């Protein structure tokens, strides 16, 4: 065929073909050298990319995973994810701590801790960090979680003193969990209102087990182990987050052995693909996200008026009872989901299957609707009252395949009891805007919990969340009181009992249908050993993972 080509075109065409053909074999060559116990390279097939690696400003899960390796907290929760008192908390920057009176907590920093530019980590850094997280110019999303800490001051270079406004069971958790300590000497010169765009966020200097190496936009972020890390040299030499915009491609990278870990597989279809890959081991762990159908109790677009359908508690209860949540979870998520016993993920210690929930009972749902006057008067299959059909819209983001599938399944379940549902699939930013301003009937929304029930439930389901995350404007003063008492309870047993009462009540009020709680499954290359996944943060214990020298593959040995 080449002979038929004009002579002038033959050479460039040949060069192109040769280059393409030659590229493949040459790229398959590997340059190796590293041997021993500290050679591992772990590539994470990440979906999405952080905007910055400055901990005050990040909300993306992938950013938090990377920051786990770069910036230390004073201490962190243990595998139990207990948040009450200081039981099972693990020391990190703080070597030890003690209470100096009921409202004063004193941390003693580990004198061996160093920033990666050689400077010592001091109590001044701790005080500076608290001040930054609380500065409105920084606009940190973690600021509300720190509101009960009055001040943080350095007593000497290695002693930081926390003073609280009130006494409550999660004082220690609040002091250590939300803040990653920042280097004051590097960030003090940066104006606070410019932190979000500060160059430091794209080339951070931390004090954690790994050092930042490079960030290639829309490609990867690479970290390398700090061999002098004061809590012990990390066993994996190099960590790479490889960004892929599509979950399916990320799963393919793990299946094809071009990445080592996908920490969440999300769908049963992905799980099956990964099960078929012989080099992959699967690790289940508790999930931290729950999803619900939120009923807007205010009129669509006018928060001053009650919603003609959802302001009625009995109607909400009927619509909750019409949904077979267990079947939906079984059919769409299999082992990757559970029916939540309230507004919570299985990460929370208040998760209790004994919490009272509304049953799946379409007969009772129908009789409630009949009793409230919603009957099919005109025989069109849709209930109506005073000429108005019982109909509403479900708002769902286009980016979530799972939630779109759920919307269709809910549409079908509601149709069966004579309720017409239309589905509005819109971009995530539009969902955010519409639920934030009350321009919706119902919406399928998700929430991520941190290990404590306190802040998340209060912000999303009590009156304190009005104008914030309580989009449906659910308000029951008795529920708010129970939550406040549960948060303030001094004994874990009391707290558990009060949380259970609060959950019984919110389930009875049915401000939403609590559809599913995701159960996580991590797919990790089987050569990786000593894998420990803490449920609230899979990457928190990465520095202990290792690849035995007998399991090294080419990319583990690469020297650069």
């Amino acid at each position, binding site marked *: 065929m080449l002979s038929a080509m004009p002579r002038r075109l033959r050479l460039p065409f040949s060069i192109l073909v040769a280059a393409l053909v030659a590229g493949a074999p040459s*790229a398959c060559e590997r340059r190796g050298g590293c041997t021993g116990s500290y050679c591992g390279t772990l*590539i994470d097939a990440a979906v999405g990319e952080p905007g910055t690696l400055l901990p005050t400003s990040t909300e993306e899960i992938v950013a938090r995973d990377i920051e786990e390796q770069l910036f230390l907290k004073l201490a962190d929760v243990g595998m139990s994810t207990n948040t009450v008192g200081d039981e099972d908390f693990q020391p990190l920057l703080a070597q030890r701590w003690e209470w100096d009176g009921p409202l004063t907590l004193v941390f003693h920093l580990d004198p061996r801790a160093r920033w990666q530019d050689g400077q010592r980590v001091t109590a001044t850094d701790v005080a500076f960090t608290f001040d930054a997280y609380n500065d409105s110019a920084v606009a940190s*999303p973690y*600021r509300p979680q720190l509101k009960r800490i009055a001040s943080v001051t350095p007593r000497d270079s290695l002693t930081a003193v926390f003073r609280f406004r009130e006494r409550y069971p999660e004082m220690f958790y609040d002091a250590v969990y939300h803040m990653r300590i920042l280097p004051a000497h590097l960030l003090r010169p940066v104006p606070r209102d410019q932190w979000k765009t500060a160059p430091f966020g794209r080339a951070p200097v931390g004090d954690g087990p790994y050092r930042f190496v490079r960030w290639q936009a829309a490609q990867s972020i690479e970290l390398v182990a700090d061999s002098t890390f004061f809590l012990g040299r990390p066993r994996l030499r190099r960590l790479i987050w490889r960004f892929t915009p599509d979950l399916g491609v990320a799963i*393919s990278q793990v299946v*094809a052995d071009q990445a080592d870990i996908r920490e969440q597989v999300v769908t049963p279809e992905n799980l099956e693909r990964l099960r078929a890959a012989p080099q992959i081991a699967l690790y289940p762990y508790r999930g931290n996200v729950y999803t619900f159908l939120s009923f807007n109790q205010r009129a669509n677009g006018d928060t001053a008026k009650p919603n003609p359908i959802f302001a009625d508690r009995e109607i909400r209860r009927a619509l909750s009872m019409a949904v077979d949540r267990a079947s939906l979870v079984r059919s769409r998520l299999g082992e990757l989901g559970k029916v939540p016993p309230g507004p919570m993920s299985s990460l929370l210690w208040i998760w209790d299957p004994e919490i009272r929930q509304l049953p799946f009972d379409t007969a009772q749902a129908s009789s409630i609707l009949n009793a409230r006057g919603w009957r099919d008067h005109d025989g069109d299959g849709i209930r109506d009252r005073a000429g108005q059909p019982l109909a509403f819209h479900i708002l769902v983001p286009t980016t979530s395949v799972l939630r779109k599938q759920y919307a269709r399944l809910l549409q079908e379940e509601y149709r069966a009891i004579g309720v017409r549902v239309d589905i509005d699939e819109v971009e995530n*930013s539009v969902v955010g805007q519409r639920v934030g301003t009350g321009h919706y009937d119902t919406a399928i929304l998700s929430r991520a919990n941190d290990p404590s029930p306190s802040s998340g439930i209060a912000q999303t389901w009590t009156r304190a969340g009005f104008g914030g995350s309580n989009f449906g404007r659910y308000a029951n003063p008795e529920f708010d009181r129970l939550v406040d008492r549960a948060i303030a309870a001094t004994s874990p047993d009391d707290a558990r009992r009060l949380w259970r009462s609060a959950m019984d009540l919110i389930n009875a009020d049915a401000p939403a249908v609590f559809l599913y709680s995701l159960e996580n499954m991590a797919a990790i290359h089987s050569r990786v050993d000593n894998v420990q996944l803490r449920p609230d943060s899979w990457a928190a214990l990465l520095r202990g993972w290792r690849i035995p020298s007998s399991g090294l593959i080419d990319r583990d040995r690469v020297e650069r």
Partner: protein
Amino acid sequence: MTGVVWLLRRLVASVAIIFAVVTLVFILIHVAPGDPCVGSDESARDPAMCPLLIRQFGLDQPLYVQYGRYLLQLLQGNLGYSFSLHRPVRDALAETIPFTLQLAGVALLIDFLVGLWLGIYQALRVNRLPDVVLSNVTLFAYSLPTFWLALVLLLLFAEKVKLFPLGGPSDPVLCPLIDSAYCVADRIWHLVLPALTLGLVGAAGTARFQRAAMLEVAQQDFVRTARAKGLSERRVVLRHQLRNALLSFITRFGLTLPFLLTGAVLIETIFAWPGMGRLAVDAILTRDHALVTATGLIASTVVVSGNFLADILIGIADPRVRVAADGTGSPLPA
């Protein structure tokens, strides 16, 4: 002199078009529904945070104030800050444009070299078996959705056969930077599937286009005259037929170039290629006003430049067009 006037006229018109597009994009993205504060809808939000961010980025100002400020920044070469990427827009574009150029360049090369050659090959064997077979093959290839072809190639050659990498522009372990001949080869290896996907579908269209153009020119009197003069078939095809058929080819080039630079979004997403199309879509989804407007600016500049370039090339290839543009003669023979 008249050529210079024509050039200046085109330049002024081009700048006006670009200005109009940027204005339109700026207004549309600002009035479009959607909340730029929404990152992940999984996080509980602090009611006080969003207004703060909006104030920090000046989004609380009236639209005309924001627009005026944007134009002033633009005149100083400042494209603004991306609040989804937490960095200057200029830096984000500077990183993605080279990748887009690499992918588009190779895809364009495949598209036009293969397409041109196939078109000529078919035209010289019109209605014979190779032509019939290739016509059907190119029609089939042209009708394939590129995203489907991309997924099939990825599944087949990357996941199953493991001949090519599964996305990304380079091996993140061996070649995070292009600092050796080895890494150049690695980049080419990573380019193969995305460039082939874009290039082959394009080549199928180009081949059909070129075949039709060649056959149309073959009916012209000057081709018959060239043959009557006793010129060799090769000379007739290359000097007379192909050169005249190139006019439509150049027009197609002018139209294809912008598409390859800005329209390869799906390919960039599937192959995790860090190009400008992907950046633009992410910017739209996050309502990143500065980034969306900047990508609109780049896209319109490329479209206008592509057409401008095509006009110049047509003028070079066909003196009749130059005559017409100069206003000194009839554009076509009587």
